[in-house]
């Protein structure tokens, strides 16, 4: 379970995350939906211990990320938009490096790897050097190395960005599988269909704040719209600030 309470982060005069509170329930898929620059990535990086928290708190399975960063890192697997791999090493070696850093036993990591290889159809690329890998292939390596320790919580930041249809579909299947294994999955996106198709709960973030949260149906009901896209526009600040703009003009 991922719990975030009144999380705040400021870069200079910009309030990137301005008091965000939400929960990612165990065995469920939670989607963070928001326009570019809404603060999704910053919030995820704070939960992932990569950025210091200004105020508020985040915890993974009850482990406070600020006080026990290593504990939090063990409890979750995080895929950010940095998906760089070591190009002179094979996909398997890239993944094994992370398994060793995490102290996962070789036999166990091989077993986990075999499962992912099957799910993500990586047989052909596994023992190839990653030089010249496509975006989709690199994403597969990045996601497996992030999850090689079989964490109970999975956080994916815009995982389908730049991927083709086949890779996107493979990823979607993976997310569903993780959920059926009882893992907590949280992912951010600005693609409505994706979020609507996968998520049990959707959190709409805009201008660093949570503007609405609930299931697809609840969000449509709340906004009085009959599709998620219209609901999203109605519920995120974007339309309101546009209106405010009009008034000023």
């Amino acid at each position, binding site marked *: 379970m991922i719990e975030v309470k009144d999380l705040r982060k400021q870069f200079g005069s910009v309030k990137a995350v301005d008091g965000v509170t939400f929960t990612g329930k165990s065995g469920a898929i939670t989607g963070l939906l928001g326009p570019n620059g809404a603060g999704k990535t910053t919030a995820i*990086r704070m939960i*992932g*211990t*990569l*950025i*210091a928290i200004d105020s508020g708190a985040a915890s993974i399975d009850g482990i406070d990320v600020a006080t026990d*960063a*290593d*504990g939090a*890192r*063990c409890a979750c697997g*995080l*895929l*950010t938009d*940095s*998906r*760089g*791999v*070591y*190009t*002179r*090493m094979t996909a398997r*070696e890239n993944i094994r*490096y*992370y398994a*060793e*850093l*995490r*102290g996962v036993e070789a036999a166990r990591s091989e077993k986990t790897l075999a499962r992912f290889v099957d799910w993500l159809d990586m047989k052909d690329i596994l023992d190839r050097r990653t030089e010249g890998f496509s975006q989709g292939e690199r994403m597969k390596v*990045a996601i497996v*190395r*992030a999850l090689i320790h079989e964490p109970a919580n999975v956080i994916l930041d815009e995982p389908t960005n730049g991927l083709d249809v086949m890779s996107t579909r493979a990823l979607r299947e993976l997310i569903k599988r993780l959920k059926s294994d009882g893992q907590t999955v949280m992912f951010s996106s600005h693609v409505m269909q994706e979020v609507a198709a996968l998520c049990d709960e959707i959190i709409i973030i805009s201008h660093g704040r949570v503007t609405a949260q609930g299931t697809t149906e609840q969000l449509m009901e709340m906004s009085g719209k009959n599709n998620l896209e219209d609901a999203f526009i109605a519920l995120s600040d974007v339309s309101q600030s546009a209106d405010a703009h009009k008034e000023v003009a």
Partner: protein
Amino acid sequence: MWATIVTVCTKELTDHLRDRRTAAMIFFLSIAMGPLLLIGLTQFISSVEKKAEAREVFVEGKANSPQIVNFFARQDVTIKDPKPDFRELIKSGKHDPVLVIPKTFEEKFQTGTAEVELVFDDTRQDAGNASIGVLRRLMRGFNGEVSTQRLIARGVSPQLVRVVDVQDVNLGTAAQRAAGLLFIIPWITLLGCVSGVTAIAIDVTAGERERGSLEPLLMNPVSRAGLTTGKWLAVAIYGLTVAALTMCGFALTLNFVPLPNLASVLSISAAQYLGFAITMFSFAPAMGALQMLIATYGRTYKEAQTYVSYLIMAVSMAPAIGMLAQFKDATWQLFVPMLGQLMVITRILRGETVTAMHYLLPFALNTAISVIAVLLISKLLTKEKIIFGRA
């Protein structure tokens, strides 16, 4: 922590050694450095010696003084005619010094003091200038002979004008004289230790940032200090390899290649090799750490390369500054990286006493540099600007 260090170090070494071209180039240059330098130095020294011993001098206007020609011939010196435009050629370093005997020489020689000109360019450091000494000595000899004859002809004892007889007593050993040139050996080998690890030092720091692999790496539940130490260890091992290969190159060349001019001055004992090695082995890892620290600020490999090049420039300039400022061997130099190592290795090559202090001070300093650099890099890896600042 130890497991992290070993994992990171093993990965970085494997990863970097797979860049075959870079690694092969660096290792080849390291091992080739000794032979290239030593053979080059031998060639240079022997050409200097040849010129100094050469019984050949250039004289312009030898028809103007049969006496000088006669004297040179009796000294077994062959006189050669200079090229017509020798003054220009000397300026451009393409001609040896020339003795010019003017047309008026004979007339003045009979009546009083005659003049000759010695044409050379002292801004040129090449071997040709060795023959200036030969020409000067010859003319001094000629002067002495003629004046002695003239004094005797007038019934005066030549002893009268020889109040002081100056005799040359050179206290410098052959080794010390050669060491004047031998500074090139420590300079180039130490520079090799620095530039040999640049590629890997940048690869493990700025390379991670450019690739976008730093952020996921830092998501692993391992300490920054462990990661950095592992990376530094890989760089240090690489640097030690470069230093060891360089040493091997020197040892093999000195023992198996006939170097007639250097063999006498460069007879390095096992103990001296050890001293040489200790100095280089403590230097290379510290320079690796320093380059890693600088490269961490680079968002890309290229940017880091620019930053690191300033360090390499400073290191390569150190001996030149030392020479210009005419530093005498002093303890304070041991506290300056590069200058200290240069001093110690030069002392070893000159066969001068090297004490424990000469090894311990630089070793302590280099260890401190490595530790501080590793700690600073670990600290930098918590900074958002470094982790996310991508080009």
